[in-house]
C-alpha cells in the first residue's frame, strides 16, 4: 500500500472523495485549524440567542462588528509579535497614544483628517521601531520593555489629553469609520467582486499546479469552497443591509465601514504571512530562532519588524476606537483592551510560545470576545455577577475549543 509515496503520484486520483476524506482525517488527526474557535462561537451565539432573542436582531448583528473591531485589529498586530514568542503589553496604550495624537492634531491643530490619520499611523510604527530595537538589539525581555512602555504610554496619553479631560473628535471622515455604513448596493457589489476574485485565484492556482504535475485541489472542492464563501458573505451582507433603525425618520442600513476595513487588513496580513518570504521567516524565527539564524535570516530585523507591525496595527485600532467613542480620553486603549486582544489571539489558536498562529485567529478570537461582551450586555447582570459570568463564559468557550482539540489529538500525539 504505502510503498513509495512521494507526492507526485497522488495526482492521478485527485478525486473529490479522497480530498474530503483527507480533510476529515486531518481533522481527526488534530489539525483542526479554525474549527474549534468556530465551534465555540456557534455555541455562544446559540446560547445567547435562546436567552435573549434580540441577540439575533439585525441591529445587534451590526453592533457586534463595531464593538469588536478595535480589539480584533490590535489582536491582528499582536499575532506577529506572538508568532515570535514575544509579547507586547503596551499595544493597548500604544493605540491610546496614537488615538490621542490623532485627536490633538484634528481638534487642537485643525489638521485635515488624512494627515492626522497618517501621522497617527506613523507614530504607531515609530513606537514599534523603538520597542523592537530595545528587544532585539539590547536583548531586554519583551515583557519588561513593553511593561515599561505600558506605564510610559499611559503617562503620554495623560499628557497629550491634559490630565483627565478628553478631546472630542468632530471630523466627519474619522467619525464615519466606526459609525457609518457602506451603501447597500456597494456592499453587494464588493461582495460579488470579492467572491469572483477568490474563485479566479483558486482556479488559476489549481491549473498551474496540475500543469506541473503537483497535487491540486479538484474542481468540485474549489466549487464547494467558493460556494461556502459566497453563502457566508452573502448572508452577512444581506443581514447588514436590512433596515435596523427604529424610527421612521432615519434609515440605518448597510455594512458598517469597519467590516471591509477588517477584511482588507485580514487579506493583507494573511497574504504576508502565507505567501511571502517575510512571513515564512516570521514563522521560522518563532519556531526555532537558532535554526533561522543559521539559515541566514536576519533575526533582529524580523523581530523589530514584528513590533513595528504590532504597534502600527495598534494605531489603526486606536483610530477605530477614537472614531467609535467620538473622542479620546486618558483611558483609551486601557482597561482590558490589551488582555482581550491577546486573549482573542490565543482563543483563535495562536500559541504564546511562538511559531503557531494566523491572522484569521485574531478575527475569530476577536469575534468570540465581542460576542461574549455583546451577549453579556443583553443579560442585564449587576457589576459583580457580570464579571463572574463573563469569566465563566470565556472559560467555557475556551474549554469547548480545548476539548475538541484534545479529543482529536488523542488519535495522534
Amino acid at each position, binding site marked *: 500500500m504505502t510503498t513509495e509515496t512521494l*507526492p507526485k503520484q497522488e495526482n492521478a486520483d485527485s478525486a473529490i472523495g479522497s480530498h474530503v476524506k483527507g480533510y476529515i482525517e486531518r481533522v481527526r488527526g488534530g489539525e483542526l485549524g479554525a474549527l474549534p474557535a468556530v465551534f465555540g462561537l456557534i455555541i455562544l451565539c446559540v446560547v445567547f440567542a435562546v436567552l435573549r432573542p434580540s441577540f439575533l436582531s439585525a441591529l445587534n448583528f451590526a453592533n457586534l462588528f463595531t464593538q469588536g473591531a478595535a480589539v480584533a485589529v490590535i489582536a491582528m498586530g499582536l499575532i506577529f509579535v506572538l508568532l515570535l514568542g514575544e509579547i507586547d503589553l503596551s499595544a493597548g496604550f500604544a493605540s491610546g497614544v496614537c488615538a490621542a495624537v490623532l485627536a490633538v492634531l484634528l481638534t487642537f491643530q485643525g489638521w485635515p483628517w488624512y494627515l492626522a490619520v497618517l501621522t497617527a499611523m506613523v507614530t504607531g510604527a515609530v513606537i514599534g521601531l523603538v520597542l523592537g530595537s530595545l528587544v532585539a538589539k539590547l536583548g531586554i525581555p519583551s515583557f519588561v520593555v513593553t511593561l515599561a512602555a505600558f506605564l510610559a504610554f499611559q503617562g503620554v496619553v495623560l499628557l497629550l489629553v491634559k490630565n483627565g479631560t478628553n478631546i472630542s473628535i468632530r471630523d466627519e471622515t474619522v467619525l464615519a469609520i466606526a459609525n457609518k455604513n457602506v451603501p447597500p448596493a456597494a456592499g453587494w457589489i464588493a461582495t460579488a467582486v470579492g467572491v469572483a476574485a477568490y474563485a479566479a485565484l483558486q482556479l488559476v492556482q489549481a491549473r498551474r499546479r496540475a500543469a506541473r504535475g503537483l497535487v491540486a485541489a479538484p474542481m468540485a472542492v474549489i466549487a464547494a469552497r467558493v460556494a461556502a464563501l459566497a453563502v457566508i458573505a452573502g448572508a452577512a451582507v444581506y443581514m447588514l443591509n436590512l433596515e435596523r433603525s427604529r424610527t421612521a425618520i432615519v434609515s440605518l442600513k448597510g455594512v458598517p465601514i469597519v467590516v471591509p476595513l477588517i477584511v482588507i487588513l485580514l487579506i493583507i496580513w494573511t497574504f504576508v504571512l502565507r505567501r511571502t518570504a517575510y512571513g515564512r521567516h516570521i514563522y521560522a524565527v518563532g519556531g*526555532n530562532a537558532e535554526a533561522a539564524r*543559521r539559515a541566514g535570516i536576519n533575526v533582529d530585523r524580523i523581530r523589530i519588524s514584528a513590533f513595528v507591525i504590532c504597534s502600527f496595527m495598534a494605531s489603526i485600532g486606536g483610530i477605530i476606537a477614537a472614531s467609535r467613542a467620538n473622542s479620546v480620553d486618558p483611558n483609551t486603549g486601557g482597561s482590558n483592551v490589551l488582555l482581550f486582544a491577546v486573549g482573542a489571539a490565543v482563543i483563535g489558536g495562536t500559541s504564546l510560545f511562538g511559531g503557531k498562529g494566523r491572522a484569521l485567529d485574531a478575527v475569530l478570537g476577536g469575534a468570540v470576545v465581542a460576542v461574549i461582551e455583546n451577549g453579556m450586555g443583553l443579560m442585564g447582570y449587576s457589576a459583580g455577577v457580570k464579571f463572574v459570568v463573563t469569566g465563566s463564559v470565556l472559560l467555557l468557550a475556551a474549554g469547548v475549543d480545548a476539548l475538541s482539540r484534545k479529543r482529536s489529538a488523542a488519535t495522534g500525539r
Partner: protein
Amino acid sequence: MSQGPILELRGINKSFGPVQVLHDVAFSVHPGEVTALVGDNGAGKSTLVKCIGGIHPIDSGEYLFEGERVHVSGPRDAAELGVEIVYQDLALCDNLDIVQNMFLGRERKSGLVLDEDTMEEMAAKTLAGLSVRTVKSLRQHVSSLSGGQRQTVAIAKAVLWNSKVVILDEPTAALGVAQTAQVLELVRRLADRGLAVVLISHNMNDVFAVSDRIAALYLGRMAAQVKASEVTHSQVVELITSGRSGELGIGNGIGAAS
C-alpha cells in the same frame, strides 16, 4: 596539494567561559577534496565547525578564505562566502514543513510571492536523489519525521545550493544502510565537481571510503592533518584516542601542518 586551500584556519582558540575547547587549531580545506575531520567525543569537532560557520565567535586566530583574511561574524557571512554547513544538532524549524525548511532563508519567489510549486518540485528531486522513500508528503512538518528523515532533510538543504565549501557534521549518524551509501556517494560527487567537502564522522570505514585528507582533533588540539592514503585505519584510531601515533600527532613537531 593540488592547489591552495580554499578555506584555512590558523591558531584558532575558543573558550566557553572558563572552559577552553579549542587550542591553537589549524585547519585547511582544499577544493576538489574530501577532508575528514575526526576526533573523540567532545574533542571539539562541532565547535570548530560552528566557528567556521559563524555560529560561535572565535576568541583569536586567523580565518582565511581563498587566501584572504575574512571576518565571519554570523551565519550570513559564512553563507555569503559560499560555505554551507549541516550541523550535528540539525536546527530545523519544527513548525515548518519539509519544503519550507529546505528553502529557508533562500526562498524562490516570483515577484513578491513565494513560488511554492518550483520549490516543491526541486525539493522532491533532491530528496529522491538521497534514497528517501518513506516520507509520506513533502508538506509534512519536520517534527513528525523520523531521526533519519530529519537528517536527510538537513543534508538535502545544504546541498541544494551552489556553494564552494560543504561541511557535514556526522551526516550519516542516523541514516540507514542505503541512505548512508547515497550520502557518501553524494559527498564524493560534490568533491569531484570541484567543491571542498568536510566530513565529520566516527565511522572509519566511511572516512576511508571517501576522504582524501584526514584531520584529527584531540582534546581541542589538532593532532594531525594528513593524506588519507598515507595513514592506516589503526593509525587514525590511535590519533583519535591518544592524540599521537608513531611520529604523527601532538608533540612530534608535525602537528597541524600536513
